[in-house]
């Protein structure tokens, strides 16, 4: 059963998602960062639906378990598309949108096939395990893609401050979750303090997006070389 801590984090996370949408609307960023906002809206709707299912069927019910993992996979895919939309913004001037779209579909299909290959031999409940495996693999693919995008930002001397902050916050988020998944696979840590930490990771993305939309104007510029860990 969920305790007051989990409910509090859930509520805070949902409120932050509302804040992202309100900030994006107020600062005229709703259409420009459409996929980011779609991901946030989807996350909010799924959060409410999860609460409904939880209160109807209970935490240990099959209904909640299935809904949780399937909706999580859906959210990971929308986040993947949000990341790709940032690629489109960075590469907009190179007119490379077609190649970005093609690459996206190829990589997503490749990840899905790889996940299928992994679960195919070892699982009786194939679809459910496939969904879980796909989510985990997409987090790592997302992390690698964000790193490549960050390298491109540094190489192309992209100066749009808002875009830079959105990319960096995604990098932090993906690496937190990828590390968390890997740690759980390595040590099978259930009931440890990581179980308390994981829901907090989910709050990071809406919190940083709300901050970026609210505080950093679209016109703000910055030399990205100032941000590199190794000075350029």
């Amino acid at each position: 059963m969920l305790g007051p801590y989990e409910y509090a984090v859930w509520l805070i996370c949902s409120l932050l998602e509302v804040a992202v949408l309100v900030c994006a609307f107020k600062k005229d960023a709703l259409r420009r960062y459409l996929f980011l906002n779609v991901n946030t809206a989807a996350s909010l709707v799924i959060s409410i639906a999860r609460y409904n299912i939880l209160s109807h069927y209970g935490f240990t019910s099959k209904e909640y378990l299935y809904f949780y993992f399937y909706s999580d996979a859906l959210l990971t895919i929308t986040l993947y598309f949000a990341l790709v939309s940032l690629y489109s913004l960075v590469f907009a001037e190179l007119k490379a949108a077609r190649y970005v779209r093609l690459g996206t579909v190829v990589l997503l299909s490749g990840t899905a096939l790889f996940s299928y290959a992994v679960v195919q031999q070892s699982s009786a409940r194939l679809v459910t395990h496939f969904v879980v495996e796909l989510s985990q693999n997409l987090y790592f693919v997302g992390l690698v893609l964000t790193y490549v995008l960050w390298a491109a930002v540094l190489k192309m001397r992209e100066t749009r401050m808002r875009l830079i902050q959105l990319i960096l916050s995604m990098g932090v988020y993906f690496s937190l979750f990828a590390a968390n998944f890997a740690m759980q696979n390595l040590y099978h840590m259930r009931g440890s303090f990581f179980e308390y930490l994981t829901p907090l990771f989910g709050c990071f993305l809406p919190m940083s997006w709300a901050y970026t939309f609210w505080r950093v104007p679209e016109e703000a510029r910055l030399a990205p070389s100032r941000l590199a860990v190794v000075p350029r």
Partner: protein
Amino acid sequence: MMAGIILACSIVLLLQFFVSYCRSLIAVSSKQVLSPEVKDVTGIQRTASADDFKRVMQLLQLCPERPEDRNGVQAIGAYFSLLSFLRSTLARIVPSMRAWAESERGQCAYFAAVALERRISFSREMLAEQMDS
């Protein structure tokens, strides 16, 4: 094996993204000039030093919190701790890192002073609204 590699990569990338993210937050605030009042309160005249950080954070905690600033202040607090850790460990072996960590810690203090300035003006606005109503 695979999970171990993913974990190691994720931690390295997390550190890199986290440092860059914090520096982007600092870059936004570094362009803002402090008001004479905040300069007096914090004792920061032109450039902030690492020693100012603790004092400015204490002052920050006295002001009502602004929800949209919370993320930035917490991230910079964690970044400051990371830099302090680096300064007392790795920087002892690599002297150039000591100077870099010191300048970064000073910029963290400046970020905190800018956040303090925002919180003071936020408190004033709230007070003015209450007086009006």
